[in-house]
């Protein structure tokens, strides 16, 4: 019996995905999902072949959000690029800002005061919490549970209010500068963070009550999208996805930066590497992040929030620019020519919510990088899809995509 090839389009202009139809295999159906589809969390397009309900081929198509960030970086000064890092993983802009700033500081050889490092650790962990809250919420939604999303979104909203107070923006924070942060923490802000952190475990418990032991949720996620240790490493997984496969690689522990070695926290790892494990790892990471935040606030150092010895790099305080000639000139030079960074090359990776975000900076001296490569964790985490998806049911693809927790802004750059 031969079945005719049927063409189904999900999404908007996805019609052209049907080109992929293989006329010889008339038993199979070509299905195009995306680029604009709720499942794909952004603009990812999947070209799939289905045999009944089972996926036999899955080819991700990227690039719909490509903005040429690396080209742009070669044409602007180091500090000017900070707002572009917001738009990589736009669910944790603060962590991106910090990773980029540290990469450039490594080349420039800038030592930061303790207070600045503590602020950075604090905002990184808050960014991790906000990213995971969203990640777990939409993951629940992908698996058919709407309510958890509302719970996590409420908490994330509170975090964004805190971010706004600190940086002046809810989403696109642009908080770090080369050699420091844009401004000190506002009066009373730490108390409000503490208040938030005291209440968050309650919300996480509620989320867990809704999902963790939920029969339907477990049935939909357990054993789905399993990634073995070997595959996870070979395909360059990082972050919670890698740890869910049972590999204890956490750059905050293994290659501590910004003073992470001072804080006491555990790294959760999974056993099976399936969607359920990836969810559990994220839940636990939120709790561990709360631990770090508490420790930072309890021992919050006094002092400066920018590196004072980086005089040629960090713009002087505004009051001084207005009243002193020396500072005015310095500010003028930094604004017009950019901070002068010595020649060299540095690769720095930070443990971001989505995985290891790397910046490979090549400087030939001067205020503009010669080449800036962004190693995006979402890009690497997605490349396994071609191997992982075949054999699963079509309905599993939503759960798999949700559990990988990627962001296309970062993937396409």
């Amino acid at each position, binding site marked *: 019996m031969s079945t005719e090839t049927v063409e189904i389009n999900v999404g908007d202009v996805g019609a052209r995905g049907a080109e992929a139809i293989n006329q010889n295999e008339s038993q199979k159906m070509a299905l195009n999902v995306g680029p604009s589809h709720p499942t794909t969390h952004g603009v990812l397009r999947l070209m799939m072949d289905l045999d009944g309900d089972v996926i036999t081929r899955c080819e991700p198509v990227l*690039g719909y959000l490509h903005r*040429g960030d690396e080209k742009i970086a070669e044409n602007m000064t180091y500090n000017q690029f900070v707002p572009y890092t917001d738009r990589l993983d736009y669910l944790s802009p603060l962590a991106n800002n910090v990773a980029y700033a540290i990469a450039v500081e490594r080349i420039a050889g800038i030592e930061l005061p303790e207070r600045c490092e503590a602020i950075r650790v604090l905002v990184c962990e808050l960014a991790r919490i906000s990213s995971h809250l969203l990640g777990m919420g939409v993951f629940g939604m992908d698996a058919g549970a709407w309510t958890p999303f509302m719970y996590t979104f409420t908490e994330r909203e509170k975090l964004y209010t805190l971010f706004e107070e600190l940086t002046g923006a809810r989403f696109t924070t642009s908080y770090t500068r080369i050699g420091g942060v844009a401004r000190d923490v506002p009066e009373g802000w730490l108390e409000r963070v503490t208040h938030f952190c005291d209440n968050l475990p309650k919300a996480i418990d509620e989320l867990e009550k809704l999902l963790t032991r939920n029969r339907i949720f477990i049935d939909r996620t357990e054993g789905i999208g399993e990634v073995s240790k070997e595959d996870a490493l*070979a*395909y360059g997984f990082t972050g919670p996805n890698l740890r869910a496969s049972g590999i204890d690689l956490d750059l905050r522990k*293994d*290659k501590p930066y910004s003073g992470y070695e001072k804080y006491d926290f555990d790294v959760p790892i999974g056993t099976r590497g399936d969607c359920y494990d990836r969810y559990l790892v994220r839940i636990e990471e939120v709790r561990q992040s709360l631990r770090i935040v508490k420790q930072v606030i309890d021992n919050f150092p006094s002092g400066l929030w920018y590196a004072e010895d980086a005089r040629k790099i960090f713009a002087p305080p505004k009051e001084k620019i207005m009243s002193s000639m020396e500072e005015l000139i310095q500010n003028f030079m930094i604004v017009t020519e950019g901070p002068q960074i010595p020649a060299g090359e540095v690769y720095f990776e930070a443990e971001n919510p989505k995985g290891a975000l790397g910046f490979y900076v090549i400087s030939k001296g001067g205020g503009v990088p010669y080449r800036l490569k962004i190693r995006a964790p979402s890009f690497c985490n*997605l490349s396994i899809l071609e191997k992982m998806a075949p054999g699963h049911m079509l309905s599993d693809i939503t759960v798999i995509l949700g559990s990988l927790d990627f962001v296309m802004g970062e993937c396409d750059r």
Partner: protein
Amino acid sequence: MIDNDFTENLLGQFDTVSKRHHEDCLTLDCKESAISKLLLHLRDEETFDLMVDLTAIDHGESAEVRFSVVIHLYSRIHRDYIRIHSPCADNDSPSFPSVESIYPAANWHEREAYDMFGIEFTDHPNLKRILMWDGYPYYPLRKDFPLAGIETPLPADDVADVTEASVDPAPMMGGPFVASTNGAMSDSEPRAKDESWTEELEKPQ
């Protein structure tokens, strides 16, 4: 951390590999022909089993070797990175042996390097553009490609036939990258319209 013994030992085994000045992690120069052997050794004998990044650099049209490929590996045992620089043969149509069979993670990274720099990775199973669309005629991260882009036909012929549209270069004037070199500087500054008064143009009341 990687110590001197490790480096000496490695350099002793490979005469095609040399050390170069480095600040953050061990940086090696490797001949293109020896890259597979070196990577296999590092993966199987020295626990560098995670390829975190593969990218390329354009050293400029006048450079002796125009393109080189840079690979970053990470070892969970050494808790350190290794960086490998490797020059690409032929400046006009650069090529490089694919390492996808050693590190599957390299698949997409190589596609990206091909897309952005035009480096042909020989024996790559699926070498096609990944960020730009199929059939895009340029390599955007090459140094001779302008920041604003180059006018290009629309990837969808049917749409282009009806709309006669094309992919245009980005408008750059007054933006963060360039200021006009013609006329007064204040004319080209990015300002809201009602504020753009100059010596000739009086401030509106």
